């Protein structure tokens, strides 16, 4: 078997068969993985929750994670926002010619670790090979199917007066990826926060903490997510600059590049809204968990307005936070 992906691996012939058997199956195999063209599973438990995500990340392996871990944790956190736990996974892998087997191996290993930790079974999967003029790459589509962790846990939606809590510090993933991609010569090696938040938030769901809404603070950063929610719930948000949990090194790194930490993607931070009366209790509980040690209340939900997201700055001025519009391109100086 060759050590890089060849066009032949996508033909459906013997090479494809070997690729699947030798590389993919050892990591993905389980008693529910279907040998047929379609998988069939039993589903006795009421509501079915489904999420899908396609992971396209450059570089494929970065400090703090890789495309495989990201492809699982993204979906797990997405289901978690609705109070659900994944049970089954469907996965599609698009591999480009010349991709080294070693990289695929490492990525599959990360996937299998997350599958084991969360007791998720892959029930169907697919591979395709594409040609790529640029450097070799790998894209992963993950669909997760799950059920409610606690059928009594209900999200009433965000209302005026709700506290905005983020479960971790902001901006780290985006900066880690930029640094790894561009080989930025910072002394600090930034590590992505890429993580499943299941163990952090599952207990809150079990004990029916009166959380009103949850949202994974990924692409678009906190600024983008709040604008989406403002439209969805016809509400506004007031942030306080001094309470934003941003690590000093991350703040400096992003500021050097001219990038706003509020617009940077995170992969292990949840926005949780909860009536203000319960905010303190939730924060105390989150902070006891290693994934929640930087959790902080960053603001409050307010009446909707023409400029729905406003931040009180450190010196007491106001800054309107706008939709992140353009690509995050670093500035010159």
């Amino acid at each position, binding site marked *: 078997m060759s050590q890089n992906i060849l066009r032949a691996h996508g033909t459906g012939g013997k090479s494809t068969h070997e690729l699947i058997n030798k590389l993919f199956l050892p990591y993905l195999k389980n008693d529910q993985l279907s040998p047929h063209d379609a998988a069939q599973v039993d589903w006795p438990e009421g509501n079915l929750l489904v999420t899908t995500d396609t992971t396209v990340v450059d570089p494929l392996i970065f400090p703090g994670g890789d495309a495989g871990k990201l492809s699982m944790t993204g979906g797990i956190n997405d289901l978690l926002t609705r109070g659900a736990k994944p049970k089954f996974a469907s996965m599609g892998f698009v591999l480009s010619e010349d991709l080294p087997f070693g990289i695929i191996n490492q990525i599959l290993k990360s996937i299998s670790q997350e599958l084991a930790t969360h007791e998720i079974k892959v029930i169907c999967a697919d591979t395709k090979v594409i040609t790529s003029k640029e450097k070799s790459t790998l894209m992963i589509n993950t669909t997760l199917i799950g059920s409610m962790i606690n059928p009594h846990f209900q999200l009433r939606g965000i209302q005026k007066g709700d506290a905005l809590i983020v479960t971790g510090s902001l901006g780290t993933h985006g900066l880690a990826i930029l640094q790894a991609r561009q080989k930025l010569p910072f002394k600090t090696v930034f590590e992505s926060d890429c993580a499943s938040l299941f163990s952090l938030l599952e207990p809150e769901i079990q004990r029916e903490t009166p959380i009103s809404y949850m949202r994974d603070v990924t692409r678009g950063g906190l600024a983008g997510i709040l604008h989406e929610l403002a439209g969805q719930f016809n509400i506004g948000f007031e942030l306080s600059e001094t309470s934003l949990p941003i690590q000093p090194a991350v703040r400096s790194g992003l500021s050097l590049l001219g990038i*706003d930490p509020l617009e940077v993607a995170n992969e292990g931070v949840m926005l949780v809204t909860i009536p203000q009366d319960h905010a303190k209790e939730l924060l105390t509980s989150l902070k006891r968990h290693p994934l929640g040690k930087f959790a902080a209340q960053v603001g409050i939900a307010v009446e909707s307005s023409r400029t729905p997201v406003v931040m009180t*700055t450190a*010196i007491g001025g106001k*800054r*309107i936070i706008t939709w992140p519009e353009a690509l995050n391109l*670093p500035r*010159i100086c």
Partner: protein
Amino acid sequence: MNSKIPMTTGHSSEEIRIMEFCGGHTHALVNAGILQILPKHIKMIHGPGCPVCVLPANHIQALIDLVENFPSLTIATYGDLLRIPTLKGDSLLKAQSRGKSIRMLYSPLELLAWAKADPQQEFIFMAVGFETTAPATALLVKKLQAENIQNVSILCLHVLTPPAIEAVLTELSPAERPHAIIGPGHVSLVMGLDPYLPLSKKYHLPIVVSGFEPSDMMESIKIACDMLGANNNSVHNQYVRALQPSGNLEAQKLMKEVFELRSQFTWRGLGNLNDSALKLKPHFDSWNVEKKFPLQYQDVPEHPQCKCGDILRGKKSPKDCRLFLKACTPNLPLGACMVSSEGACHAYYQSGGLP
């Protein structure tokens, strides 16, 4: 701030106009919400210190045309420049989407590795920026020469701060002219304080060289007001924690070795200014794009309603422009001041047009 830092000055009831030259300072003023809490009689004028904003788009158009004619070339430049709109809404970013090889870099020295890894590929570096980025370009040129790397050439479009300040001062009428100037700390980290002395003397202006934190900005505004009150027209270093008055002598030496003045350079908004930009010395012709490639310049007209020129001259504010927030946004910028995050329009956009 009104209560904590009294703006004591002899001009107390009259308007005090202070120009922050640098786009980074404009950004800091807006982002920290300082403009809203300044005493009413202090008016900040936003200067032209945004390297992307003052670069005429015809240079970018010329490079796009070049790479269309020679598809094997790679153009490398800073991220900000990729979005600048050129003819018919084109840009380097769009050329990249069409499959042209356009690469973003963070440090010019990255080109050394690229060039060595791919010796058959010809790289063009579009070198832009004030005195802050010029030393890095000079270092690149010296290293290309030392290592005899021939597949990188430079389009040197570096510009200088003092001529731009002077252009704004002469352009504005006495009733519009700033009473004091806040100068960029990072330019002085390279050049020191001396380049400002003639300006301060000629125009009887206090010049405060400032850091970039909100507290730096507030302190610098306060110092400028105090200097005005004391009739002290000198150059003051607020950025003492980082800035030696002499600047970075090593960087200055490097720049002298590699660059010479262009007798004329056209700035966006400011027009033709004498001795205001840098080019490579003839000694480095083998790395000079202008000597190696047939660059053809054509006019890239501004949008007829775009007020970037007046904004760069300190005559108008973004809010005076009819396109601002309507037709012109960071996603679809019509003028350069909206493209760069240091542009006044972009800074105002980010605060929803608040100040």
